[in-house]
């Protein structure tokens, strides 16, 4: 089945807009840090957050009045993707556009606030305004309402592989010939409780840098934002192949599972790989699998610059892959050590003849996914 990228949208801690963020990455810039604290805890955490300015151009909408920040990120990214493709949704096509929303931790800020009221002040203090926003599909619902989509709308939950699983699901949906487009959006918000949970799981680093493919897995920095990809039947960047995904049972088995998936995705030529290396155990798993399957491919991860955005991460990677093929260039890999046994871009790297990219997502909670992009 022919599937192509018609438009993309990007909200990140390094700015908003595909071209703008891409330029920042090419310049070798890294997002600014914010500090998250919790009134009942001594430990604070450093994260990459989206600035208020990134959402300044988002028009007010009744649905966004009380909505979580995830919904705002998603709306901004989704609208950018549609605008980039020149697609407007109206009563004639609103049933022919599907929405697949990828998310991992959901509206955790509102969820935490809602539950805090219950445990601090009792059930009678629970806010009926907050509760609906704690539901996983609240952001997708707001986005569908803002865009006017009345057909298929799905919220897919998973770990940081969920973005690519959402693209796979979109491909499943597009087997329906009546669908013209599928908008795939991934979004996540950063909060203290998430940082604390990831730290207790020994996956978080208290301060940057994020060292990709390092000898020692020192951990990741959490971030937030959204990515959106509008899939159509035709376009210059094609989703040449998706993998249904899989999961590893133990962390030590992640490399083997990834290798099997890469073997299926690699094909005759793979010029570059957009990796999900984020400074955790998955770096080693990906590194070994890549060495064994596509040793000549150039490998890049933006997570040292942008952080780990979990539910949004897969979509960010697809955008990176698409941009690299379109612009024929890769940004420099930040904080890379010379001992990395992979071909990585130490500085801006031209890709004059690159045609095929693999996007590889290894989640922190056992899921993996991948796909292959090509340029016509």
């Amino acid at each position: 089945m022919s599937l192509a990228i018609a438009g993309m949208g990007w909200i990140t801690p390094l700015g908003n807009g595909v071209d703008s963020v891409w330029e920042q990455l090419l310049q070798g810039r890294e997002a600014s840090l914010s500090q998250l604290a919790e009134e009942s805890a001594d430990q604070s955490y450093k994260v990459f957050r989206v600035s208020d300015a990134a959402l300044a151009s988002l028009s007010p909408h009744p649905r966004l009045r009380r909505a979580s920040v995830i919904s705002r990120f998603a709306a901004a990214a989704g609208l950018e993707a549609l605008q980039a493709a020149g697609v407007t949704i109206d009563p004639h096509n609103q049933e022919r556009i599907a929405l697949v929303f990828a998310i991992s931790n959901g509206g955790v800020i509102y969820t935490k606030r809602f539950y805090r009221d219950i445990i601090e002040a009792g059930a009678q203090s629970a806010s009926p305004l907050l509760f609906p926003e704690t539901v996983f599909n609240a952001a997708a619902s707001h986005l569908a309402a803002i865009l006017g989509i009345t057909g298929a709308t799905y919220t897919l939950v998973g770990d940081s592989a969920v973005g690519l699983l959402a693209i796979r699901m979109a491909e499943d949906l597009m087997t329906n010939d009546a669908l013209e487009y599928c908008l795939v959006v991934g979004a996540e918000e950063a909060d203290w409780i998430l940082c604390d949970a990831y730290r207790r799981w020994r996956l978080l680093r208290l301060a940057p840098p994020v060292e990709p493919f390092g000898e020692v897995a020192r951990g990741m920095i959490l971030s937030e934002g959204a990515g959106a990809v509008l899939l159509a039947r035709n376009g210059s960047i094609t989703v040449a192949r998706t993998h249904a995904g899989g999961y590893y049972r133990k962390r030590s088995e992640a490399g083997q599972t990834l290798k099997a998936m890469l073997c299926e995705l690699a094909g005759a030529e793979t010029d570059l790989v957009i990796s999900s290396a984020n400074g955790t155990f998955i770096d080693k798993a990906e590194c070994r699998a890549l060495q064994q399957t596509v040793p000549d491919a150039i490998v890049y991860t933006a997570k040292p610059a942008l952080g780990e955005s979990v539910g949004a991460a897969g979509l960010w990677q697809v955008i990176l892959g698409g941009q690299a093929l379109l612009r024929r260039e890769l940004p420099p890999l930040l904080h890379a050590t010379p001992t990395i046994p992979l071909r990585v871009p130490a500085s801006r790297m031209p890709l004059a003849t690159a045609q095929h990219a693999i996007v590889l997502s290894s989640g922190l909670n056992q899921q993996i996914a991948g796909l292959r992009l090509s340029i016509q």
Partner: protein
Amino acid sequence: MPKSIAGNGKSINSRVAVVAAGVVSPLGFGLSETVDSLREARDCITRVTRFPVAECRCKTAGQVPDERLLKEQHEANRAQRLHRASHMMIRALTEAMTQRSDFKPELTVIGTTSGGMSYGEDYYRSVRRHGNLRHAPTWIANYPAQKPVIDAQEAFGISAPCQVIANACASGTNAIGHAFECVRSGRYQRVLTGGYDTLSELVFVGFDSLQASTPEKCRPFDRHRAGMVLGEGAAILALENLDAARARGVPVLAEITGYGMSTDNFHLTQPNPSGIGPKQAMERALRSAQISPSEIDYINAHGTATVFNDAAEGKSISELFNGVPVSSTKGMMGHSLGAAGAVEAIICLLALQHQFLPANINFGSADDGLDLNVVANATRPAPLGTVLSNSFGFGGTNASIVMRKLEA
């Protein structure tokens, strides 16, 4: 097989069989107990015991008893760490795999709304109150929504990729519908599907805060209905290409023939009172099944017993259908959110197999505004060939599936 085009423009390659099923819910552990409860129109709603409800208006729910759920699985250390949702999923999958141990899915599509929420509650409460965080890694590892799915698969050596759909209360039906389309399109031969959800304090208090849950009995479609009661459970259906199943000599429990969904952009928590969302979902399911409304013999309604849901759903049913028997089984077992559509698909399957109309209990008098043929209070025998099941959720997601009995 040449492609044909259904009314909704979809290419049809394959028919889709249900070849195995498993369930755990307040109605019972397994299909057999569930049939018994349905036949007796048993009220399985009890006072909530898992967390304090003294400050809530509603104090009852449909609950799966832990003493049975955990009894056989507490042997291993690992099992002790699993969330109740994992135990329910393992139970449901065990029953399905007992029927078809050779079923090797290429994909698993499961609906849920809250994953391992109670572990998230435990974690946050401990952080907030400077409590004991010794179990934090277990809570964190078992909190994600995909974990119970992976746990259940691992118990049977299944390594299929998981798509976990969280479309609020429509999740279970959306999961089955998407799985159905995956097989129907020919992209997959075998897909495992279903849904799960367990009671949690956060969600219970949430519905209570919205005054969507009732301190009284849950009375779907009744004139004096006052809201829902929550429930919990898990249900699994194994879907397979019908021709392939028949070629292997596999008994077919039922055929899924249609799926429709719509997105009603009216409000985050309330349906459009016109009933347009449910109506579109049902119309699309009928078109997908290539049948007319008159061919539906029974509707298992979403029927939460909230004033707004039942009014919108009832209106759309009465506009589309002419006197078809309708019941909501939530009065018996509560609303199990992401599991509801999957459990209710199993109820439809059992209704087709055993030829009965499941009861809509606690029904006193008809709502003047609803022209419905409600299966009031008692389950009764009826010849059923084709049935429709509805699920609607927060966010305006509406989903309907059509199932039919397949003669041997």
